[in-house]
């Protein structure tokens, strides 16, 4: 629903609950601040509910459906009062919007609430671009960046043009596409620690593609993938900085990059 409608109904800017994700919370707070800044710049009010931990993917993807459902119920309860839920991660946003309805389908008191929450949950750049109609940001960044399409955001939520369109409005920034930007980086949550050698072979290819793009900065929309790629870039001694795309869009691209101190 476009912002004007919401504003028309309530006479006020829409209220957004920011679901920070566990990785942003623990590893990359500045992504959370960047997301909040962008949501406000788009004309919405932002709140960060305290009763949030994680979307439950670690349990869900490990086969622990009962715990995943318990965590899903907790997220539904904490966030259903907002006009929108915005998530700076394609994979966590997809978990809420694509998987919670199935996960809670058999729970009579939560099934419809999970479906309602799914309807109003968005990945950050999709929210800014598709829901709020944002077409440009006030930000500058000098240098060339390359953008990795994280799998869930791309294939479950079709996030592809939104981050690129917004990046195009950043002063001084050039986007150099890498080859196979839509191919997995090898993170896969627990996969990367369960099968480290296979994961490594995949991320090694990704790092080569990043290097071939000749960009100095790697951007993506998911901290998990970014930590994987940043960790590999660092291990291989590559001089490429990794950041969440929100940080550049929020004009916070001069803060320390991932793995560079905060």
């Amino acid at each position, binding site marked *: 629903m476009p912002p004007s409608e919401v504003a028309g109904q309530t006479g006020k800017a829409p209220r957004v609950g920011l679901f*920070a994700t*566990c990785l*942003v*919370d*623990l*590893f*990359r*707070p500045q*992504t*959370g*601040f960047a997301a909040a800044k962008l949501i406000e710049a788009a004309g919405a009010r932002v709140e*960060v509910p*305290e*009763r*949030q*931990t*994680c979307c*439950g993917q*670690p*349990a869900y*993807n*490990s*086969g*622990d*459906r009962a*715990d995943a459902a*318990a*965590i899903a119920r*907790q997220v539904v309860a*904490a966030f259903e009062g907002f006009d929108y839920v915005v998530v700076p991660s394609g994979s966590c946003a997809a978990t809420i919007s694509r998987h919670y309805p199935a996960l809670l389908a058999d729970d009579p008191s939560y099934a419809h609430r999970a479906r309602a929450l799914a309807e109003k949950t968005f990945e950050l750049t999709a929210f800014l671009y598709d829901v709020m109609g944002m077409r440009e940001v006030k930000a500058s960044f000098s240098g060339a960046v390359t953008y990795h399409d994280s*799998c*869930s955001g791309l*294939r*479950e939520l079709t996030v592809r043009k939104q981050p690129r369109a917004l990046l195009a409005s950043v002063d001084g920034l050039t986007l150099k596409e890498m080859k196979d930007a839509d*191919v*997995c980086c*090898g*993170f*896969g949550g627990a*996969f*990367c*620690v*369960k*099968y*480290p*050698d*296979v*994961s*490594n*072979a*995949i*991320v090694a290819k990704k790092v080569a593609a990043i290097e071939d793009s000749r960009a100095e900065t790697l951007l993506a929309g998911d901290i998990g993938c970014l*930590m994987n790629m*940043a*960790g*590999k870039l*660092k*291990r291989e001694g590559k001089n490429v900085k990794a950041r969440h795309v929100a940080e550049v869009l929020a004009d916070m691209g001069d803060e*320390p990059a991932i*793995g560079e101190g905060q």
Partner: protein
Amino acid sequence: MSLSITSPAFKENAALALADVDLQQALTHVERGFIEKRRKAAEALPEFEALRDEARAIKEHTLAHLDLYLEAFEAKAQHAGAEVHFAETAEDARQAVLAICRRAKARTVTKGKSMISEEIGLNDFLEENDIAPVETDLGEYIIQLRGEPPSHIIAPAVHVTRNQVEQEFRRAHAGLDPERDLSEPVSLLAEARAALREKFLAADIGITGANFLIAETGSSVIVTNEGNGDLTQILPRVHIVLASIEKLVPTLEDVSTLLRVLARSATGQDMSVYTTFSTGPRRPGDPDGPEETHIVILDNGRAEMLAGELREMLRCIRCGACMNHCPVYHAIGGHAYGATYVGPMGAVLAPALFGLEKTANLPNASTFCGRCEAVCPVRIPLPKLMRHWREREYERHLKPAAERGGLKFWAFLAKRPGLYRLATRLGLAALSRFGRQDSYASLPFAGGWTRHRDLPAPAAKSFLDQWKASR
């Protein structure tokens, strides 16, 4: 005898595969060749996406009425003079084939490509019974010489480099002129054909697989690019078709729809070079064809899949697109999976056929990147079905205790936001004391991560705490 399943050693298999220079070279063909060809073929056909929906609907409809279509097929095939054998288990199927061989007093059988034959371990079984199987598909022939299982469902020898094939032929083909140039794939094919020619003529029985069984006509359909399948089923006196229950399709019309998505998804061709329909044995007046036709239809756990969440897997038309687009398959190839079927489709199918206990690694060894589902012509939700197996694994306590314990502890906290805050606050503070760094090259308990990459350091203070302080 039973098929050897090496999936429990998946990690070790994968490590060997990653270190195998020839294999890594061969695998680049999958990553580049197949993907590009499929993309072009899909783009060239405006109705491709709509055809995928149709293909899916055809298979769904068939599965919903599978009992009826199986009966109809049996009646039509019998009417055409074929004998239909239903085999509940792999052993039943092997015995059915052996009985036919015994009756025909067969010494040699030629074989077209058949994954069912691999699934039931037919070649080893025939050899144990003094019957010599001869694979006639070039790829199958190569791996038979090498004593290997296929590493891909449509390109069984995709893991072998051209050089290795040349070496294998020079070793195996007595009388091959050492001067003969075998540097081109066509010359290798010609050499294989020359070696196979006599075998075709000497074979007592020809065994082929089936891409489809048509209920309307009682026919079986195979697609190949080499024509070897035709010779395999026309020249010998007896033809055996090995199929499984989900190969059923109602009508000829349906087959033509499925063929259109199959070739494009598999190799990027509009059509495979040979598409062969066979209906019963030779009739009076027919110029050629076998005197006897037998169709062995295998269940091997599929009927059970039909009733549950895995049913969608039975839509599979074995095109190979899922493995062609899989980053894990690209990294390690097919043999590491160790359970006949490989890549994403194998990760779903193998636990159903061979038991989850032995194959639990396979549905876990996926990043859930979703590219398989995005290209599957019959839209099988492969990641969802892999997750299904992870859930069964968890339920049955098949996971290592340490992993389960860690997960349980994490979930305990994640379900209690207040406690989670406290615990993460303490954890972050403790890590800071452990030695504040920007990233870690190694950390206790994080070996899986830090073996190959640094770990960016956690924040000193969580986002939620910082946010609260800032407002």
